[in-house]
């Protein structure tokens, strides 16, 4: 808050009535405000999805539990999955991208600011539509409320006969509209990164975060659209009496599975590549070393994006494909582990020999490295088709993908929150609460998801609302539920930290971490126009060059 311009702006904000402030936020096209809206919106849904997860875990805490009915249980796991993927993970990652990418490449806004706001409001509408199904889902039939067909909506469960009423329609339209929002933002990010870079910011000098968001957006263009197409087909089936997925008329239920997973697997990488992006920015700063193997990191990311488009049917080994298809998808699935392994080596190479500072963002990043490795390994062993036949649709799979999404993506997101919160708000998050949050979450996470593998190996199927006692699952499920509660408490600590630090946190200043990318060169929070004059860069670490004019990076590039 040093520059007089910012101070004047601040007083203006304080003086105007709150309706005016609200109006400004609703009509904003500023990439920073849209980014914050995305993140706040996702945090609301994180709490809602978390409550659904806890409901599921309470029900499964002990055998023959009747905390919720089977019908409600089905709605809970459907809504939990849909919410966490489409209304938490996607918007929060797009939110960070929106906020950070223009600042990092030295631009004043996104390429299409109004498209940006439009995409956000599409996403917001779709989340509202999905949750309106709790009220409006009964339709005229008095059947069902929220959708209960699982987040894959496999045929024929999603057909009129098995999902009467409107609940499945709310699901379909919500996912379709959120897909349009995602495509809009992906187009915007690509155009921003390719067309709005400041002078000197060649593709080879971009921060890795921009490179990874570019890859992720490209993947989103071809990964999310198949789902949009499949949703259109489902709408034709449900509203116009079409037969795409209607086996009675010669349609194929398997075709839906293919279409869904042609989206579903690239989606995992759409979510995890931004997580890689955060880690690639945070680890160098807290290791006090530039990133190890920048070009290889870029190449590995693009390679992951390509390979990830040819692995989808490993979700479908149990449907009885021929052995050629099985072998093909087993090999591609194992192959995608190679570039991912390269990235892990490079992050370790960055830390190796560095003066590591164990601040909260770094703690979450290190936990990410370990957990993402384990998550990848349980994924690779399921690429072996016979092993997958044994474990598919069991709690082992549930444990595996939660390891990726919670242990990988969510940990990276927490790291990003602690790292960039000072830039967004001008205040530091409390380090003490941050460490409490970290350790509670690590303990809760490992109690929950390490243990969850075992009932899966013992044969516990996913999506069952209760089970018989005496199968060796009882104690394990109790431990998993306790772990879920500890994670819930940790998230509450985190949210408390976000709220309290906004007023009571220490002043951050422009550059609290002594970092090297352009966003730290402007005030915290940045002014509406980002850069008073557009910067000119000569290396991958422009702020290093400025702080060390005697030994700039540009001398070696």
């Amino acid at each position, binding site marked *: 808050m040093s520059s007089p311009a910012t101070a004047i702006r601040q007083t203006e904000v304080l003086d105007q009535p709150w309706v005016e402030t609200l109006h400004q936020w609703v009509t904003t096209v500023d990439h920073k405000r849209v980014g914050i809206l995305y993140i706040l919106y996702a945090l609301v849904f994180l709490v809602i999805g978390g409550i659904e997860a806890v409901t599921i875990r309470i029900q499964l805490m002990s055998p023959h539990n009747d905390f919720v009915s089977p019908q409600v249980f089905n709605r809970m796991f459907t809504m939990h999955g849909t919410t966490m993927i489409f209304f938490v993970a996607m918007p929060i990652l797009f939110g960070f991208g929106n906020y950070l990418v223009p600042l990092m490449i030295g631009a004043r806004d996104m390429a299409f600011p109004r498209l940006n706001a439009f995409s956000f409001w599409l996403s917001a509408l779709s989340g509202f539509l999905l949750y309106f199904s709790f009220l409006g889902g009964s339709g005229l039939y008095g059947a069902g409320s929220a959708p209960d067909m699982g987040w894959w909506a496999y045929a024929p469960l999603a057909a009129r006969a098995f999902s009467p009423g409107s609940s499945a329609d709310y699901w379909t339209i919500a996912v379709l509209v959120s897909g349009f929002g995602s495509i809009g933002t992906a187009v915007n990010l*690509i155009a921003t990164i390719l067309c709005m870079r400041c002078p000197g910011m060649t593709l080879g000098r971009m921060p890795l975060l921009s490179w990874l968001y570019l890859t992720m957006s490209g993947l989103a263009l*071809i990964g999310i659209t198949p789902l949009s197409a499949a949703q259109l087909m489902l709408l034709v089936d449900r509203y116009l009496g079409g037969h795409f997925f209607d086996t009675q008329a010669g349609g194929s239920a398997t075709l839906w599975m293919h*279409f869904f997973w042609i989206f579903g697997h690239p989606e995992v990488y759409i979510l995890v590549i931004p997580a890689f992006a955060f880690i690639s920015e945070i680890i160098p700063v807290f290791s006090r070393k530039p990133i190890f193997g920048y070009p290889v990191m870029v190449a590995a990311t693009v390679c992951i994006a390509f390979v990830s488009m040819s692995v989808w049917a490993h979700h479908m080994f149990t449907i009885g494909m021929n052995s050629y298809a099985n072998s093909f998808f087993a090999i591609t699935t194992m192959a995608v582990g190679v570039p991912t392994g390269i990235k892990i080596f490079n992050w370790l190479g960055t830390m190796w020999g560095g003066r590591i500072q164990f601040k909260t963002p770094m703690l979450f990043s290190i936990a990410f490295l370990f957990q993402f490795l384990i998550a990848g390994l349980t994924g690779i062993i399921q690429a072996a088709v016979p092993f997958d036949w044994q474990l598919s649709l069991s709690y082992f799979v549930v444990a595996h993908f939660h390891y990726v999404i919670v242990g990988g993506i969510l940990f990276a997101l927490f790291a990003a929150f602690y790292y960039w919160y000072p830039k967004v708000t001008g205040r530091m998050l409390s380090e003490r609460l941050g460490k409490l949050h970290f350790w509670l979450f690590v303990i809760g996470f490992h109690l929950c998801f390490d243990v969850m593998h075992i009932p899966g190996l013992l044969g516990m199927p996913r999506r069952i609302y209760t089970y018989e006692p005496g199968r060796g699952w009882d104690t394990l499920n109790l431990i998993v539920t306790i772990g879920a509660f500890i994670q819930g408490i940790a998230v509450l600590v985190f949210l408390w930290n976000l709220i309290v630090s906004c007023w009571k946190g220490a002043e951050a200043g422009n550059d609290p971490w002594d970092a090297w990318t352009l966003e730290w060169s402007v005030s915290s929070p940045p002014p509406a126009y980002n850069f008073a004059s557009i910067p000119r860069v000569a290396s991958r670490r422009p702020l290093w060059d400025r702080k060390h004019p005697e030994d*700039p990076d540009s001398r070696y590039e």
Partner: protein
Amino acid sequence: MTTFAAPLAERPPAWNLPDRGRVGMACLIVAESAIFTIFVVAYLFYVGKSLSGPTPRDVLETPIFYTICLLSSSLTIHLAARFLERGESRTFLIWWLLTIVLGGLFMYGTGQEWYRLIYEHGLTISTNLFGTTYYSLVGLHASHVTAGLVMLCTVLVFGLAGRVGRSHSRRIDVLSLYWHFVDAVWVIVFTVVYVIGR
């Protein structure tokens, strides 16, 4: 925030970046291509799998005239854009109007075909798998042509009001990129539905 300590001896080289409109439209085209790919795959997957008639062989007639209309509209919009680039607004408007007429003719042809299929052959979207996939794929394309026509007409209205000039040339180029895409998709839809699908 002035310049960063860039130890460059000579003046920095010129900084040229691609046009964001073209990049944005190219991205949209990539995304749309993926949507069409899924519909084309569904069409090909279900060829000959209908449990009841009518079949494509029985009822489809190749719309050669209307295909020529749509494909030649790619040429006319290209010419229109070139004339605008040279600042010849009147000639631009003539070619632009011709593009709209050709696109409109194509839509009329589709309407004719659908009318014939529905009222003479009783083929609707819910009749059989052929009906479902045919109307979805052709309808998806037709909806893109319609969206294109709406945008073309908007430009025409502004053009007649004398508000489209040389300075809008790049935006017109972006719009014509979309129109070329719609035409290119028709080549694929035509091949799949009227050549392979029969």
